[in-house]
């Protein structure tokens, strides 16, 4: 026996109370968020599925070619085509589009939240000192922990998956935006001020363009984290390649698991290389 004293602290109750209170008072808010996210998600997903497959293969090829080189473009195009052949009847093509839609929405929302928040942090010392420890905490937590609040607020399905993905993926873009804006040379900003610029003009014409390469690095990292979260997010019921991996695992179906796994890897590599190449473009312009 370890002889630990018999004390019962029921912290869980307070957490439950907080959640209940949030649900009671902000139900409309959660419903609205849920509705909007779902609409965007379904919109993008059905658009991607509506596009003929060769358009998407073509786009991937063209991006690879323009941003990296012709060989890479052909390789990426072939890889994407390969994924489409898995499972028969375009099964994996559909799954891949669902996953892509999830990633796109998560990244889009992360950027709309993350970039302004990063700017705000750069401008306001207090916000920075509040947000930084939260971001630190978020990045040390195992990713599936985010599924819990996501499920509590949004139940099962696509929305909690997107929500959890956003929470997991948003820190890098916040951090790097903050850093990038803070690092803009003071003399450049003063030059802007000395010509009578408004704060808004300084942000738009000096700070943001100067910060762009670093912000793009943040966007790249956020994208990669969103991709990594997709498999885990499928645990709460988002259809896509992630769920395929889970199902295969459950049935000990090695062949299917391999196909699903390799599809995710291919998607990850392509997205990573393309977004990195795009980021380097911005840096090269300096």
């Amino acid at each position: 026996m370890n002889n630990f004293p018999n004390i019962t602290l029921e912290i869980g109750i307070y957490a439950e109370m907080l959640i209940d209170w949030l649900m009671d008072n902000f139900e409309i808010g959660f419903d609205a968020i849920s509705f909007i996210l779902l609409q965007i998600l379904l919109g993008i997903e059905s658009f991607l599925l509506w596009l003929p497959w060769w358009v998407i293969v073509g786009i991937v090829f063209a991006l690879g070619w323009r941003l990296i080189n012709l060989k890479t473009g052909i390789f990426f195009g072939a890889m994407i085509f390969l994924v489409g052949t898995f499972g028969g009847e375009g099964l994996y093509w559909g799954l891949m589009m669902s996953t892509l839609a999830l990633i796109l929405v998560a990244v889009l929302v992360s950027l709309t939240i993350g970039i302004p928040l990063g700017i705000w942090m750069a401008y306001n010392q207090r916000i920075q000192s509040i947000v930084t420890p939260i971001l630190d905490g978020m990045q040390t937590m195992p990713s599936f922990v985010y599924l819990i609040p996501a499920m509590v607020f949004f139940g099962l399905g696509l929305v909690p998956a997107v929500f959890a993905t956003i929470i997991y993926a948003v820190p890098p873009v916040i951090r790097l935006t903050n850093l990038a804006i803070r690092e803009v040379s003071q003399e450049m900003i003063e030059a802007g001020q000395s010509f009578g610029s408004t704060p808004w003009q300084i942000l738009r014409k000096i700070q943001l363009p100067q910060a762009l390469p670093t912000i793009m690095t943040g966007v790249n990292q956020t994208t990669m984290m969103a991709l990594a979260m997709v498999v885990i997010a499928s645990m709460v019921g988002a259809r896509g390649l992630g769920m395929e991996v889970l199902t295969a695992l459950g049935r000990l179906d090695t062949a299917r698991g391999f196909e699903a796994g390799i599809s995710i890897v291919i998607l990850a590599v392509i997205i990573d290389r393309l977004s990195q190449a795009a980021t380097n473009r911005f840096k090269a312009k300096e």
Partner: protein
Amino acid sequence: MTTKLKVEHVSKIFGRNPKSILKKMNKDGGTKEQIEEETGHTVGVHDVSFEVEEGETFVIMGLSGSGKSTLIRCLNLLNVPTGGKIFIGDEEITAYNKSQLRKFRQDKIAMVFQHFGILTHRTVLNNVEYGLEIKGMPKSDREKVARTVIETVGLGGWEDKMPSQLSGGMQQRIGLARALATEPDILLMDEPFSALDPLIRREMQQELLDIQNKLKKTIIFITHDVNEAFKLGDRVAVMKAGKVVQIGTPEEILSNPADAYIKDFVQDIDRTKILQAKNVMFKPTAIGTIKGGIKLAIKEMKDNGISSLFILDSERKLQGIITIDDAIKANQEDKKLSDILRNDFETTDLEAYVQDLIPKATESKFPIAVVDENSKLLGIIVRVSVLSALV
């Protein structure tokens, strides 16, 4: 001349409680170091007053940390003074609200920075356009203006390059062009050439002098280099520990330094570059005239103990020089004054630098005549004055 800029008792103190520290300082006195030790506040500038005339180049010089940047940044309110008033024309800019201040910065004043402050994400042309863009000038107009100014500062052909493709000296030309593009009345330059190597630096100084000759802006120029200060400045203010310790023309400061600090400062100046003909010449007291004739000329030379004499006509125009030997001989042979006039002497104008007079002074056996454009005699420079200016 009209006063363009008036600074009245301006102070800038950094720290948590600058206003009360300033009050205490005004009441009880205390040096920059004392205040820093006692209160932890930094005195950037304390109780500085001066005026700058329209079209004048006013140089502020002083050692590092003496408050030069703090002061110049008060003039466009990048630093808001802790106390005191600043007037441009008869507007008190220290009383401006935010939008008045923006308007003022857009239209009246521009700044050139030590490390250029160039926007690295914009082309040369777009950098120069920046101020006009903020003013709200349409794209085609501002491009036209920017191209002209780029030409003025000698950057023609580089319009579409990125700043990083240009050398330091050329980058500062962008800074200068950007500042000139908005046609400001006042140009603030905070050590604009300090980051450049000596050769480029001299070139830029000359460029600024040329531009200033054409445009006649009111310029406030900061430097810690005495040579630069005296070369460019119509007047120079010397700062020390947040205070202005002397204001004057380069000659005044050079010939009459207010204290040991300034004496130290001006010691490494090369005097020949600063002193001009007008600083070392004598008023021509002993002269002869054509009308006066030979006899009078001989008497003049004898009375003054000199061996040669400049001869003028009735309008004080310089006709030539005679020597005592020639004059005595001519007098015996009954020749006229005009027969023995010689022209193998050197002339110069008022503004010539003593440095450039050295060869003339050492070669000619006669004094150098200082004349105006109508060849009226204004003064005489003897060899010894030129050479003594060297030490």
